[in-house]
């Protein structure tokens, strides 16, 4: 069997994190090939379902990226993101998911380097945690 490679879903807001990813590309900062980006207009568009469905269908990690507070293109979208994300995360952790498997981080459009670094760190963390417990069939 081929060696396990993680699959990470990054849900990125169009105005900040997605631009950051773009910048990381133009500046030639590399980040792991396990990263798969889904673009949404605002991190406030991220429904908890996006995260649970990604986990359910076998993603090894889910990363949500938005704008820093005060920078939201839509004024307050990211304040909704953090409320929903934190509540969902509490529930997911209570449901036995590892704390580090889902992450929320603010990355601005000018932080290409930060994007690449965050992705590298997150990928390393997921490799340390191993495959998604649903996919791996470990005690489920």
């Amino acid at each position, binding site marked *: 069997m081929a060696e396990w490679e993680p699959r990470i879903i990054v849900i990125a807001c169009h105005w900040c994190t997605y631009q950051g990813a773009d910048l990381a590309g133009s500046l030639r900062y590399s980040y792991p090939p396990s990263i798969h980006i889904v673009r949404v207009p605002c991190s406030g568009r991220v429904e908890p379902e996006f995260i649970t469905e990604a986990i359910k269908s076998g993603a090894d990690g889910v990363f949500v990226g938005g704008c820093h507070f005060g920078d939201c293109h839509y004024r307050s979208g990211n304040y909704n993101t953090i409320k929903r994300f934190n*509540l*969902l995360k509490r529930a997911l952790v209570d449901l036995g998911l590892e704390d580090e498997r889902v992450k929320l981080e603010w990355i601005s459009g000018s932080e290409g380097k930060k994007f690449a670094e965050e992705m590298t760190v997150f990928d390393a963390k997921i490799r340390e945690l191993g495959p998604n417990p649903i996919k791996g069939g470990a005690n489920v």
Partner: protein
Amino acid sequence: MSKPKLAYYLAGGCGGCDIAVVDLSETLVDVALAVDIVFWAPTVADAKYKDLEAMPDGSIDVGLITGNVRNSEHDHIVKVMRKKCKVLIAYGICATSGGIKSLVNLYTTEQLLDKAYVDTMSTDNPDKVIPQTSCIVDSKYDLTLPALFDAKPLDQVVSVDYYIGGCPPHYDHVKTAFTALLTGQLPPPGSWITSGKALCEVCGRNPVLTGKPKKFTTTIKRTFEGTPTEGACLLEEGYLCLGPITQGDCGVKCPNANMPCRGCGGPIPGVKDFGTRAISAIASMLEKEELVDEIPDPVHLFYRYTLAGSALGKKLNR
């Protein structure tokens, strides 16, 4: 024309849904006259599983199943019901989404049995005997029990034609549903035989119905803290009412009694996962992000009736 044949099976439930049918009172007489009850076990009719198994496939017009699928016996009878019934209805929240009893999915069967039979202060069980699927008593009496597994909603085992939520469904709603069934005015298969609208739409406490916008929740209150203001929205007052997410066929019983809704009506049609929708809506209504940490025990709150039917469906890494 002969009367439609009705079968009713209680799987992993409590019988509350059966009582909701009985609560039809005088209407029950009309129902009983209008249908031919061929099987209703174990609560009402004196029918045995082998009688059901002996019926020809597709010979029953309507089958109602309450309770979730929790052991091999439920699994078997539910599959038999599917074969015998033309229309199969998941009746009540356990059958549709798993119900309170699907909270067992937070633990393994071993952990649950250990707590019930061994690790309880009032239990005297020095030999740590727990139920087995088969055992031979006195080396000659061969006894079997069904195997326990994680709770599942009905549609994870067989295909389901219609859903009715509620824990239990309110008798007024049962009447509506039975009327729809008997007159053949049914929505397309796969639908809920419900209003399809949230509790808020019928709740007298909802400010929106009088044209006033809903305000953010500024504090988190537990139900024993204070008394809700007369007629005020419980969610606005901080009581984390799940009314916006829950189907309101119940007649707003809980909010009318100053108790916040806990979601027994099930998700609004089109919503797959009640818990995550509730998390999204309730978190959005909080004024400040710090309030998120004050919500006690989110899993038991948001997934109370729907854990088995949710995306994850169970606790991982138990």
